[in-house]
């Protein structure tokens, strides 16, 4: 039974990371209807920037996280201004390829600056802790707590503040939002900033129990796409529930079936679910 709870904990950890990444992705999709393939590269950039802050500037973990969130938010806004905005009237294919261009640029940039090697990020919470009779690394608990707090804050921001409501309004109806005086440019920039910051924080939370390297975003972003398809593209609760489902499925599948094929589970789950329900788990109508 202990092993079961251990896997549950692992599933919640990784599910929390997936949820944060998927939330950023789904927010951008809701506003712009662009599947942002560069999101995984922003996640990777977040880890490297924090790594740089900690190793070269000697900042502590939390300051590095804040700094990296700020830097990636700016990167994300630049991507919107310089790439997605000029392409707003182009066919959807062009947005996707442009996002791939950003991805190539950021990945090659990180590799040119920091090399293709794997780096280990130190965290002040690497010690073992005991909770409810389970032994685990403190960082894992921090990830779960961090994800819960961030999701709660984001939820309050989106539903209780005027700025947050403008985002929801624009996701519901772009023209309608413009008609009631919402500044589309500002809201879009804000969404990109939030999305980039979420990716960076997720990366800094997850890096100490994983590794930092230029290709670290690939699998995470692809799984985040699986999550937002399952949860319904642009759906906020869908991203959270989907993230947890994939995280738990991977933890239990990796433990009870095979660790070799752990990364396959998310994709097979997607294929199976979409074969039965092509419209996704949570969306009511067809796309």
């Amino acid at each position, binding site marked *: 039974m202990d092993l079961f709870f251990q896997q549950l904990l692992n599933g919640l950890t990784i599910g929390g990371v997936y949820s944060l990444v998927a939330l950023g992705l789904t927010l951008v*999709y809701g506003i712009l*209807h662009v*599947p942002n393939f560069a999101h995984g590269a922003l996640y990777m950039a977040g880890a490297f920037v924090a790594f740089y802050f900690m190793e070269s500037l000697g900042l502590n973990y939390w300051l590095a996280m804040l700094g990296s969130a700020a830097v990636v938010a700016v990167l994300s806004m630049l991507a919107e201004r*310089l*790439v997605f905005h*000029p*392409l707003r009237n*182009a066919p*959807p*294919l*062009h947005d*996707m*390829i*442009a996002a*791939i*261009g*950003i*991805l*190539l*640029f*950021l*990945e*090659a*940039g990180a*590799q*040119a600056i920091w090399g293709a090697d794997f780096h280990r990020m130190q965290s002040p919470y690497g010690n073992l802790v005991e909770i409810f009779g389970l032994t685990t690394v403190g960082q894992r608990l921090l990830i779960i707590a961090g994800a819960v707090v961030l999701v709660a804050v984001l939820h309050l921001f989106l539903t209780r503040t005027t700025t947050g409501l403008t985002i929801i309004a624009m996701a519901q109806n772009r023209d309608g939002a413009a008609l009631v005086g919402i500044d589309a440019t500002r809201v879009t920039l804000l969404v990109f900033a939030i999305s980039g910051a979420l990716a960076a924080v997720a990366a800094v939370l997850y890096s100490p129990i994983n590794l930092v390297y230029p290709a670290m975003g*690939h*699998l995470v972003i*692809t799984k985040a*796409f*699986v999550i937002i*398809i399952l949860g319904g*593209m642009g759906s906020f609760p869908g991203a959270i529930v989907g993230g947890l489902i994939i995280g738990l499925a991977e933890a239990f599948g990796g433990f009870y079936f095979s660790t*070799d*094929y752990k*990364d*396959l589970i998310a*994709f*097979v789950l*997607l*294929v199976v679910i*979409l*074969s039965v329900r*092509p419209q*996704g788990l949570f969306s009511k109508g067809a*796309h």
Partner: protein
Amino acid sequence: MKLLQGKAGWALLIALALVFPYMVSNTYFLSVMTQSYIFAIAALGLNLITGYTGQFNLAHGGFMAIGAYAVGLLTTDYQWGFWTAFAAAGAICGVIGYLVGVISLRMTGHVFSIFTLCVGYIIYLLIEKWEDVTHGAVGVMGIPSPTGFGGLEFESAKGQYYLVLAFLILGAYIMHRIVHSLLGRSFVAVRNSEALAEALGIPLARTKRLAFVLSVIYAGLAGGLYAGVVRFLGPDLAATHHTFELVMFMLVGGIGTILGPILGSILVPWLTQSLQFLQDYRMVVFGPVLILLLIFVPNGIVGTILHRRARRAAAQREQAQAASAPAAASSTPNGARHA
């Protein structure tokens, strides 16, 4: 300029390709060109489903890897002859493509793209992890080069170059016949509007599936040639960046044209080769170049030329009309613009 259009233009291109091995002394350039042609065949296939049918398939590189592995494994582990394995590669890709198509083509737009991206990942992970069959990360080594027939040999760089060129020309010709047939027009109708195509009596699901299967057969055969020419395979071939490269070739050359993907497959590798001196910084330059191309040359090279020509022709027609029938011209100038 007139001379370079239509059949004469194609004849000139083929003639250039035929004398190319005699113009370069370096076999390295020859092998770069041979690989460009192989990717051009795959890009032609991707163009059928994406450029003509409007479904952005991100598993195309994965299907190319399936074709390559089919040839690689059948010739080494099961001692099949190259050409039977090559035919099998096309057939296997067609069957897997049909099965994937049945599920994935029920989705539209971005969901289809992301779903196929995941299919590509499944292919990649299966090739990497299923070591008993695919040799995993070690890869497949010692694949024989295509067996010669009728006095032809495909062992030398030159022989392989001409073999691949022949397949490319054949592939482009068949693609030309497909897109100009009634079937090709129904593909374009699906791209332009699914609802309208269905209203015209085009069976939507079957048409899309057919385009998908045809396109992945191109990918599979290109993969088979790749296995015979490169003679070594690693799981990396199925990685998503290969798909992205194919998409790039298609887009830079001109999506929805036949010459475009071929031109892109030749030009882009030359461009990245010439950026070689930048080494690690190559993609740092290439990413922004790609974005600039998308913003300023959205139709690709061939597409832009075609657009310009169509506009000029329309303007000339309008002028001619205005000159011959000044009274009637004022009522019909819009008719010419649709050409």
